[in-house]
C-alpha cells in the first residue's frame, strides 16, 4: 500500500516538474525571440494600440512588450515554484538522471509548441515575406512552418 502512495506522488511530482519547465521554456523563448528579432517565433500577432476613453492618449503594446509580459507571467511563477520546491516536497524525489530526462523532454515540448503556435499565429502577417536566410535566421522574416514548407515541400514538388 505504501508503495502505491510513493509511486503516485512521484508521478505527480514528475508531471508538476515537467509542466513548470514547459511553461518557463515558452516564456524564455519569447523573450529570446523578441531580443533577436525572430518575428516568426513570436506569439504576439503585432503591435496592439489601446485608447483609454475619454482620454485621447493611446497606449501601445509592441511585440517586444508582449513577449516580456508573457515571460513575466510564465517564467517568474515557474521559477518561484522551483524556489520553494524542497520545502513543499521534503525530499528530492526526482533523481538527477530522471530530472535531466524530464527537463530535456519538457524543453523539447516547449520548443515544438512554440514553433507550431507561432507559425499559426503569424501565418497571415508574414505570408508575403521572402527570405534566403538559412536556419533560425530565416525566422526573422517568415514563420517556421513557412520556412520548412517552402524549402522542403514546395522545392521538392517543383523539382
Amino acid at each position, binding site marked *: 500500500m505504501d508503495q502505491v502512495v510513493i509511486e503516485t506522488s512521484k508521478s505527480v511530482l514528475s508531471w508538476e516538474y515537467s509542466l513548470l519547465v514547459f511553461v518557463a*521554456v515558452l516564456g524564455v523563448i519569447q523573450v529570446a525571440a523578441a531580443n533577436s528579432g525572430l518575428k516568426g517565433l513570436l506569439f504576439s500577432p503585432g503591435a496592439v494600440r489601446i485608447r483609454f476613453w475619454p482620454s485621447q492618449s493611446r497606449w501601445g503594446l509592441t511585440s517586444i512588450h508582449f513577449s516580456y509580459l508573457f515571460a513575466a507571467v510564465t517564467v517568474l511563477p515557474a521559477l518561484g515554484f522551483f524556489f520553494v520546491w524542497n520545502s513543499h516536497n521534503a525530499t528530492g524525489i526526482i533523481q538527477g538522471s530522471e530530472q535531466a530526462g524530464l527537463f530535456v523532454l519538457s524543453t523539447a515540448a516547449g520548443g515544438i509548441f512554440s514553433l507550431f503556435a507561432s507559425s499559426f499565429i503569424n501565418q497571415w502577417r508574414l505570408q508575403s515575406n521572402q527570405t534566403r536566410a538559412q*536556419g533560425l535566421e530565416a525566422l526573422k522574416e517568415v514563420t517556421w512552418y513557412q520556412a520548412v514548407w517552402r524549402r522542403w515541400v514546395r522545392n521538392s514538388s517543383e523539382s
Partner: protein
Amino acid sequence: MSLDLRLFGWINGLGGHVPALDRLVSGLADDYFMIIAMCLVLVGMWFGTREAAERERNQMAVLKAMASLGIASGFVAWANVIYVVDNKSPGTSLHEIFNRARPFVQLGPTVVHGFYQPTDPSFPSNLAAVVFGLALAIWLMNKKWGTWLLGMAFVACFARVYVGIHYPSDILGGFAFAVAGVAAAYFLFWALSPLVKLIKWVLKALYLAG
C-alpha cells in the same frame, strides 16, 4: 580544526539568525531552482542573439555545456556506484572520502538552516559538478554569459554550505568533477567533429539552429 571545517563553520554560522535570510538562501540551495534557472539561460542563449554568427557560436557553447553537464554528473554517479552502492575498496581513503557523512551527522542537526536532511553521502556535491560543468563550458566560449553563470553556480554552492548540507571540500570535489566533465566534453566535440557538423547541418536545415 581543519581549514575545511573552519570554513564550513564560518559560512554556516551566518545562518540561523535571520529567518527570512535562511528562507532566501534555502531557496537558492534548492535541488532544482538554480539548475533550472541556468538551463533556462541556455535556452535563451540558443535563440536570443541578433547576429547569426554569434548565435551559432552560442549554440555550440550550449551543446558543449549540455554534454559537460551530463558527463560531470555521470562521473559523480559512477564514483558513487563504485564506492557507495557497490562498496568497493573498503578501508581505503577514497572509500572514506566518498562515504563521508553530511555535516549535520557529524556536527548535529542544528547546523541545518531551513533545509531537508539528505540521506546520501556528502562528497562530492553533485549540484556543484552540474552547475560548474555547465558554467565553465559556456565561459570558455562566451565570457559574458559564462561569468553570469559562474556567479549563479557560486551562489548555489555557497548556499548549500550555508544551509548545512555540504562541506566546502564537497563543493571543491564537485568542481573537480566539473572540470573533468568539461575537458571530456570538449575532447569529445573535437574527436567527433564530423558528427557535430552533421548535427549542426541537420538542425539548421530544419530551421532549429543557426
